[in-house]
């Protein structure tokens, strides 16, 4: 049997990081601890209240659409999607039906093939991007005690971008990569924090397969929409499970399905299985119609062009620039980009100042990220600014500090040592206090070496007799005495002196 064709399309919801909600002035903030405190007549859907479009939400949406290279509609409008649910206080969601603000577009995703280990760039086309309001949250009694259900409307009216891909995704890992790349793009654009724990990025996946039936005909399995996916790993695992399940089901029924209508399945992350949910309600009719409370919006070419000019460099492009123009390894470039725009900016400033991108990357990916992780800190709050790190690296490049001393100075800077003043002044002070200056003065070094050998004749004799390991103690002693000295130089000078 030939390997099946996997057909996956994703529907991704991204909460926009605006200060206020989409149609009112309430705070747009994740706050499950205090239900219903971020509400007003508008987002509560009280009689008489009216929505007013948040300009920033619209602007962020357009930036996302432009970054995804979609075409921005000259005129867009909002429609009411009508259904009853307790978390939807107006009994309609203000969404976009037939005139989304953005159509088309695509996202390029680099995937690595398991078998060949080859990389390939896959272009995933998008159908559309639209802007809508999020619903609230129903809270059910999960104790099993049958307590009353409650509704928290803090989330109601959060601006939400819906991004719908074409069914261009061909594997579960590819879906995972798509989401990672999409998340990075949104984070770089500062459109969304895409925090999955807080639900600011959510995903539904549509998946089916094309298989060959016993008669040799290509048959497509019924489309399954997997809902409730709240982690990238979950998406991949659910799709992997679902692909295997559909293959198994196909084998069992020989490709003959009694009902080939689309079905909805949930994902049980605990058990690692998808399970049938009630049908996609083909009977449900959302009775979309244009919301009469919100006027249609038009965008001038100038405005769209201005927004396009303001777009940041997309993360994928930045990543390749790091590799191709700055000489970083693929791995380092990916690590830096994955940390988000602020870390990437930090790195670039360090690299620019010290003129050594590779060394800058090493310091940021190893030392800086380690410190941040240990301290649970954001790069913007980090005690060593790019200038400071660049100064330090420059000293190492100039061999005024050994790498080891550099690390010691870095640790001291992180702890806030070195007193007041500029970073350079602080570094000078730390170096002086700890006597870390590299000993470049050969006379001084020679003297030191003579003293050390004199006090360790036995070790010197051992080395001369061929016990190479004996030199280690001598090097250690010299280094300790010197405060800051390059171990390689010390070793060479020692050997020369002993053999002389």
């Amino acid at each position, binding site marked *: 049997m030939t390997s099946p064709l996997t057909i996956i399309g994703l529907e991704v919801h991204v909460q926009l990081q605006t200060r206020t909600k989409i149609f009112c002035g309430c705070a747009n903030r994740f706050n499950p601890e205090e239900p219903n405190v971020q509400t007003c*007549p508008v987002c*509560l*859907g*009280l*009689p*008489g*209240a*009216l*929505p*007013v*479009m948040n300009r920033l939400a619209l602007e962020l949406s357009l930036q996302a659409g432009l970054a995804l290279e979609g075409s921005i509609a000259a005129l867009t409008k909002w429609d*009411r999607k*009508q259904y*009853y649910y*307790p978390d939807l*206080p*107006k*009994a*309609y969601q203000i969404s976009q039906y037939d005139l989304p603000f953005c159509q088309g577009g695509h996202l390029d995703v680099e995937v690595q093939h398991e078998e060949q280990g080859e990389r390939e760039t896959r272009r995933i086309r998008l159908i559309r991007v639209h802007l809508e309001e999020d619903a609230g949250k129903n809270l059910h009694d999960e104790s099993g005690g049958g307590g009353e259900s409650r*509704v928290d409307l803090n989330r109601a009216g959060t601006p939400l971008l819906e991004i719908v891909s074409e069914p261009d995704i061909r594997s579960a890992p590819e879906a995972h990569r798509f989401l990672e790349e999409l998340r990075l793009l949104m984070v770089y654009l500062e459109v969304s924090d895409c925090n999955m724990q807080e639900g600011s990025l959510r995903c539904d996946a549509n998946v089916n397969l094309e298989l060959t039936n016993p008669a040799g005909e290509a048959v497509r399995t019924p489309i399954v929409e997997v809902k409730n996916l709240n982690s990238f790993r979950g998406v991949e695992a659910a799709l992997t499970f679902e692909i295997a399940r559909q293959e198994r089901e196909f084998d069992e029924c020989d490709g003959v399905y009694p009902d080939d209508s689309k079905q909805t399945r949930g994902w049980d992350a605990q058990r690692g299985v998808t399970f049938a949910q009630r049908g996609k309600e083909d009977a449900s*009719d959302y*009775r*979309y*119609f244009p919301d*009469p*409370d*919100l*006027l249609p919006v038009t965008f001038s070419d100038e405005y769209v062009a201005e927004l396009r000019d303001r777009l940041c460099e997309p993360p994928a492009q930045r990543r390749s620039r790091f590799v191709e123009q700055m000489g970083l390894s693929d791995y380092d470039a990916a690590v830096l980009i994955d940390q988000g725009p602020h870390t990437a900016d930090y790195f670039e400033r360090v690299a620019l100042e010290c003129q050594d991108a590779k060394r800058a990357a090493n310091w940021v990916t190893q030392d800086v990220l380690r410190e941040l992780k240990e301290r649970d800190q954001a790069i913007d709050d980090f005690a060593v600014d790019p200038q400071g790190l660049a100064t330090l690296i420059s000293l190492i490049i100039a061999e005024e500090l050994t790498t080891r001393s550099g690390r010691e100075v870095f640790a001291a800077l992180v702890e806030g040592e070195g007193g007041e003043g500029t970073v350079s002044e602080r570094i000078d002070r730390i170096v002086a206090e700890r006597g870390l200056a590299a000993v470049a003065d050969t006379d001084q070094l020679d003297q030191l070496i003579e003293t050390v050998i004199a006090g360790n004749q036995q070790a010197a004799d051992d080395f001369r007799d061929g016990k190479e390991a004996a030199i280690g103690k001598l090097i250690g002693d010299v280094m300790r005495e010197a405060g800051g000295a390059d171990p390689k130089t010390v070793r060479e000078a020692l050997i020369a002196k002993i053999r002389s």
Partner: protein
Amino acid sequence: MTACRETAAVLLEQLAAGAVTSLELTEACLGRIAAHDESIGAFLHVAGDSALEAAESIDRRRAAGEPLGPLAGLPVALKDVLVTSDQPTTCASRMLEGWNPPYDAHTVEQLRAADAVLIGKTNMDEFAMGSTTENSAVGPTRTPWRLDCVAGGSSGGSAAAVAAGFAPLALGSDTGGSIRQPASFCGVVGLKPTYGRVSRYGLVAYASSLDQVGPFARDVASAALLLEVLAGHDPRDGTCVDEPVPDYRQQLDQPLQDLRIGICPEHFAEGLDGEVRESIEGALDVYRGLGAEIREIELQHARFAVACYYLVAPSEASSNLARYDGIHYGHRVDDYAGLVEMYSNSRGAAFGSEVKRRIMLGTYALSAGYYDAYYLKAQKVRRLIADDFSRAFESVDVIASPVAPTPAVPLGQLTNDPLEMYLADIYTISANLAGIPGISIPAGFSSDGRPIGLQLLGNAFDEEQLLRAAAMHERETRWHQAIPDLDGDAQR
């Protein structure tokens, strides 16, 4: 107290001159409500204590020489479709029985800022759906002129309150004629402003693209005064237009030179009551006598207006009223098994039959497969109707017509025949579809003493000219000075 019969404009002068205090005036209005509202049914809620308190406070501030707002000390009644933070708001529906909104409508804020005395909430057809105020869950409102006849609707309570001397001013809302028609049935002035002239924030929505808040008064000048307070930009309503509000009273007394009045021959054809026709023709004669020119105009698509309206309005209503689901506020039945039953039982129990009828009509019209044929088609017709008016206003300044085919009808006559009731909206509905302003002014009485109104329609955002044209007629006639006989001392 005779103060109850004066116009708001005159009362303001008396208040300013100290001839009457706000407390005296408010007490007089409350006294009159207590004496007569049982038979009329204008009010759903009378805010006696808070009104007296507000009146006293305004009197104190006046005595202290403090600056006061443009309606200082005047009692104003509010249609119960406007949300109020200190009075219940029910829309005359069991659904919202006992609901106390946490906020004020924009227009209510404007009234408070103008130092008006909010005297109570008036009866209406449930959720503003109807033309007689008989669809109120509480009971009908009767025109003060004939207690066996309806006050009109849906703002029947507000119109009757002003006619009966319960308040010199009132607010109503007009979606298809709901200010103008009851104004006609009750013999007062009622104005529907241009769509977007007055904020809808806090107006409980019936049909969002048609609803507009407007004033009731005993004369044109007082309506102009109240409109000035209501109109203006409100950033909380995206459909409210940011246009300056003119001083409507400044030139109100100056007649319009070479006024051109359009009439549509179809408006005087079959179905129009003979006495109404006579009154309208009489009004046109008044204008002729003032040098106005009467021109026939063509409103080609006007005949589709009722059909168009009864697709657009119920469609929007079906959506706007979906929020009354018994979850967050409003009526919830005790008896249900599961969520769906909680919805359907609550809505089934708390909505009246006209509301249910329109929700069903609208739900049907918006359903998949029907949307294009109904809602979308209706929106296209609506555009044509608006274009007809734009064209007409190139050659005329205002358009005159009857407000309703008949004077106030006897209770029960229209409730049994919804289609007949819908058709009675024929003269008023087009203005809502086109978004243009319209006013109803007293223009006569039937032989059995029921008031008859004249409707004037104006161009969008030209309330100033509309009011001036209305004032011209008012200066020449005494219809607006007639007072219904509630105390047995009729003055007609």
